[in-house]
């Protein structure tokens, strides 16, 4: 029995999770729960998904040992190369799964939210591949700082709507996607991009990403003869982290999810309810959701997936946070020492590794490099100067 098993019938991981949605969406969530359970236990669906992951997304993703940087830090550093997947991040694992499932359910249209644009691009890609319509909601702030990804989505045939309400970032894009889904639930599938939202999303999205952890565990044993001492991943909603954690949660491996200092929901450890789930949530003294602040659009989210809150609450995983300045340094460090430009999101994970390396001397550290940095180059050009 794994620690990361199915949630309770009510969709709870411990006291976190649940299904706090408008009544209109309850039947759709129930239908999705049933359809996913049915598909996940159907060998034909699993074979179809495996096939498309291998022949289209490029799985399995490889492990890369970072000799230069590892020697510099005094650790054995290995990267799980989700950045080399088609569309440039781990997001494609979940999106291909959900799009296949949506098709099986007879839905013709995908609705998605996006922060940095990685999930939006992945959704647009899956929609193009499977002949579905797709609409992506993206905060107006993120549209401005990720214009390349906006154009990519349009090239792929999707409609992108800039969201001008609230903080105009990922949280508001989720709100607008949910509003769309409330109105179009009979024909549309909400292709949620992280391990968050109402049940069954946190569970379903984790299952679609556990391929990261399952591969990484076998690859680690092949490369190093053992599981790593430490597994590190960045956490916004937490999908890439949950994916890689799922491979090691029952081992002795230390699990570290790194949040941005301006979006440290787990550190603040205050439960709240938004976007359909009960989880740790940044909020004020009256329960108004606070705006996260991060250099990385993909981590600019005031909450966290409920299973992370659970893993934190039982002490199985830890969730430190790093500052934007540390992230900018780490971003450049990986580029210069290893010839790999990471996504700003993953630079959070590396920033923590750099900080914690003195206490991890000689240990094996596996980091999930969940996305590539091409999308961030224009923004970093502004930050670093041309």
């Amino acid at each position, binding site marked *: 029995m794994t620690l990361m098993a199915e949630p309770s019938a*009510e969709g709870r991981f411990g006291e976190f999770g*649940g*299904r*706090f*949605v*408008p*009544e*209109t*969406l*309850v*039947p*759709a969530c129930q239908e999705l729960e049933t359809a996913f359970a049915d598909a996940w236990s159907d060998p034909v669906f699993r074979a179809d998904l495996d096939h498309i992951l291998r022949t289209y997304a490029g799985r399995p993703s490889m492990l890369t040992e970072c000799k230069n940087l590892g020697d510099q830090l005094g650790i054995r550093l290995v990267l799980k190369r989700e950045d080399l997947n088609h569309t440039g991040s781990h997001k494609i694992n979940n999106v291909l799964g959900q799009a296949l499932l949506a098709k099986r359910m007879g839905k013709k249209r995908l609705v998605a939210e996006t922060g940095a644009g990685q999930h939006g691009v992945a959704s647009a890609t899956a929609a193009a591949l499977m002949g579905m319509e797709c609409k992506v909601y993206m905060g107006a702030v993120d549209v401005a700082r990720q214009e390349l990804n906006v154009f990519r989505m349009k090239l792929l045939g999707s409609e992108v709507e800039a969201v001008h*309400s*609230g903080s105009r970032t990922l*949280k*508001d894009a989720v*709100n607008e996607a*949910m*509003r769309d889904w*409330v*109105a*179009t*639930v*009979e024909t549309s599938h909400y292709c949620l991009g992280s391990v968050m939202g109402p049940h069954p999303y946190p569970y379903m999205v984790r299952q679609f990403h556990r391929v990261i952890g399952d591969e990484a565990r076998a690859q680690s044993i092949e490369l190093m003869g053992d599981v790593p001492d430490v597994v590190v991943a960045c956490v916004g909603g937490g999908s890439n982290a949950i994916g890689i954690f799922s491979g090691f949660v029952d081992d002795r491996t230390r699990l570290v999810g790194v949040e941005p200092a301006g979006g440290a929901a787990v550190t603040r450890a205050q*439960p*709240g*309810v*938004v*976007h*359909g789930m*009960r989880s740790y*949530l940044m*909020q004020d003294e*009256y*329960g*108004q*959701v606070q705006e996260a602040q991060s250099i990385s659009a993909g981590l600019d989210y005031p909450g966290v997936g409920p299973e992370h809150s659970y893993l934190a609450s039982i002490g199985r995983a830890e969730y430190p946070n790093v500052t934007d300045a540390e992230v900018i340094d780490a971003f450049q460090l990986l580029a210069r020492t290893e010839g790999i430009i990471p996504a700003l999101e993953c630079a959070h994970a590396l920033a923590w590794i750099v900080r914690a390396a003195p206490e991890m001397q000689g240990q094996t550290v596996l980091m999930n490099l969940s996305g590539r940095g091409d999308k961030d180059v224009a923004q970093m050009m502004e930050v670093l100067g041309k």
Partner: protein
Amino acid sequence: MSDTFGRMETEFRAKRAAGRKLLVPYLTGGLAGWQDAVRAAAAAGADAIEIGIPFSDPVMDGPVIQQASQMALEQGATPVSILQEARDLDVGIPLAVMTYYNTVHHAGHERFAAQLLGAGIVACIVPDLPLEESGPWCVAADAAGIETVMLAAPTAPDERLPRVAARARGFLYSVGLLGVTGERAALASTASALARRLKAITDVPVLVGVGVSNAAQAREACEVADGVVMGASVVRRMLEGGPDAVGAFVAEVREEISH
């Protein structure tokens, strides 16, 4: 079903028995002049008022109520300030609040119910708290004598509606369409269809809300339902013309549904 009804349900049942259609305007609490707007709506023939406690992430609301919520929050409105101000209202009709669940969750169920009671509020509507998650709040609300209005949606299968209706206190909120709050050119066909399904299975007063946009649509909805909740159309008038415009609109709807 409880044997003794709360204040709002008791009044609604009596008015329905007397042949009156029920009119519940929604107003965002905390906007400048909102108390005057409540008084104007009450004087113009409202049967209860739904006071919105604004939340940062109102997923069931369209642009008008989103804008009003954001304005109220920017003007410093909090659940505590709005309930404090509600205490001074003496309008002679039941007052309900509408808010999202994190407001309730954050305050704590018992404490929030006590706060409502202390402010003279008799009922509560929480649109992101569906039946399956409503248990702990309903226990606290029932104990405090706060009536929890449940929402029923057009997407619900037949077997679900009686369970939702059985948990409804005050009235049953029949969601008029697939979508968020906001004005529409015509009453959706789902509005009357769902109200008819609900009337067939419950004697709790059934009020149609979401997408009931003007007096004519209110009248159409009332051909099947016991009354209507009107939100965006009222809030838009509040934003454009203040309490007087709210009073005039409520009077117009009252007149239309009284024939």
